[in-house]
């Protein structure tokens, strides 16, 4: 992405949807003071409501919360905060996607042991996961606006994680599903929400039909929840993203989780601390849409003084080419497949 025009304050680029630059090269998102003040107010309102919900639910089920735990730095901090700050009884849940960094797998083992939490790992078949990533890389599974904050492969993986976590939560009557998303990765209105599957399933149908067609019919088993379980549901859990309530720099996050035995993995790109696939996902996104899927998230951190512009650029430019080629080989994808 050399030579591309970027905002002179954040790193949003000229190909990002709805972007406009002023005469100083500053983008409309950086100039939007209303967005900034509204966000602060909504975060405080969310904080009050989340604490109230946690206080009301604590100790009423076998587990208070299922925490989606990838082994990355953000989800590690999320797990730590859920246990130590919010004092919830936790079931940690990891989806092993066959591309998790070996270093991240070691981190997962150490952190769950040190925090003393129960932990389940779900490993979908490698055949399906490869087909899912191939399909998400090659075909237009999602609409372009879905992909403003996330790459297509990450979106497929996170959909699978969310659906699996929801299944466990419904089966075990766990009231909260906690994830490690930060503001920028998700909008302020999604800090917490009730996951009413029955409402959302119709809107997911077009995507699931495409995944069934291109990744295989078993996509339905992984991405949907069967009627027998839904018929037993009395109340849907809330998804809560507690990191949105915090203002940690990356250095502070790492310093906070090092005592749990966490160490930075070596075989990942600048934007991931757990997944080997990420660098390839970003490569596909840039090639198809013309901008990096981390631009919005990192720009949000810059505007909140949690990251410098130089650090953000360093992150999105850290794209080991040999890692991209290795993943393409593992997924049996060539450049001509991605257009």
């Amino acid at each position: 992405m050399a030579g591309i025009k970027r905002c002179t304050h954040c790193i949003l680029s000229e190909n990002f949807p709805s972007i406009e630059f002023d005469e100083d090269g500053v983008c409309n998102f950086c100039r939007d003071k209303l967005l900034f003040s509204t966000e602060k107010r909504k975060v405080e309102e969310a904080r009050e409501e989340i604490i109230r919900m946690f206080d009301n639910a604590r100790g009423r089920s076998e587990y208070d919360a299922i925490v989606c735990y990838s082994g990355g730095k953000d989800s590690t901090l999320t797990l730590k905060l859920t246990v130590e700050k919010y004092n919830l009884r936790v079931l940690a849940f990891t989806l092993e996607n066959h591309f998790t960094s070996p270093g991240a797998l070691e981190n997962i083992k150490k952190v769950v042991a040190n925090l003393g939490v129960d932990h389940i790992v779900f490993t979908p078949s490698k055949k399906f996961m490869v087909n899912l990533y191939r399909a998400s890389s090659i075909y237009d599974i999602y609409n372009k606006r879905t992909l403003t904050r996330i790459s297509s492969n990450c979106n497929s993986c996170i959909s699978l994680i969310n659906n699996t976590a929801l299944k466990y939560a419904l089966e075990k009557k766990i009231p909260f599903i906690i994830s490690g998303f930060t503001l920028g990765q998700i909008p302020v209105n999604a800090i917490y929400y009730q996951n009413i599957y029955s409402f959302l399933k119709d809107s997911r149908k077009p995507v699931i039909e495409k995944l069934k067609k291109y990744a295989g019919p078993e996509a339905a088993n992984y991405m949907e929840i069967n009627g027998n379980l839904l018929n037993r549901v009395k109340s849907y859990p809330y998804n809560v993203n507690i990191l949105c309530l915090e203002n940690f720099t990356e250095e502070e996050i790492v310093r906070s989780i090092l005592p749990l035995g966490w160490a930075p993995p070596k075989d990942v790109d600048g934007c991931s601390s757990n997944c080997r696939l990420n660098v390839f996902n970003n490569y596909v996104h840039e090639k198809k849409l013309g901008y990096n899927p981390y631009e919005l998230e990192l720009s949000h951190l810059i505007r909140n003084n949690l990251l410098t512009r130089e650090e953000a650029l360093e992150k999105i430019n850290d794209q080991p080419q040999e890692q991209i080629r290795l993943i393409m080989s593992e997924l049996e994808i060539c450049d001509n497949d991605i257009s």
Partner: protein
Amino acid sequence: MKIITITQEQIQDELLNFLSRQFFVPVSEIDLDKSLVDTGIIDSMGLIEISAYIEQEYRFKVTEDMMHRENFGSVLKIVRFISSQNGKE
């Protein structure tokens, strides 16, 4: 908190402003009487965001029985839904 005398026109303006900012789409590209999902402006997560927006801005709980296409099937339907609930509590 919103005052209970807010008009449907105001609700619509605020909703369009929210959709435009949240989903990076010019207001002129939002078809008022078509499904936001079918027209590719939002996905299932977008429905959650709109539901959360309504709860936070208009201070009423969007319950499961309210979540169907008749209430969320287009901008006009969402506006009518908000208007019908606004001021009830």
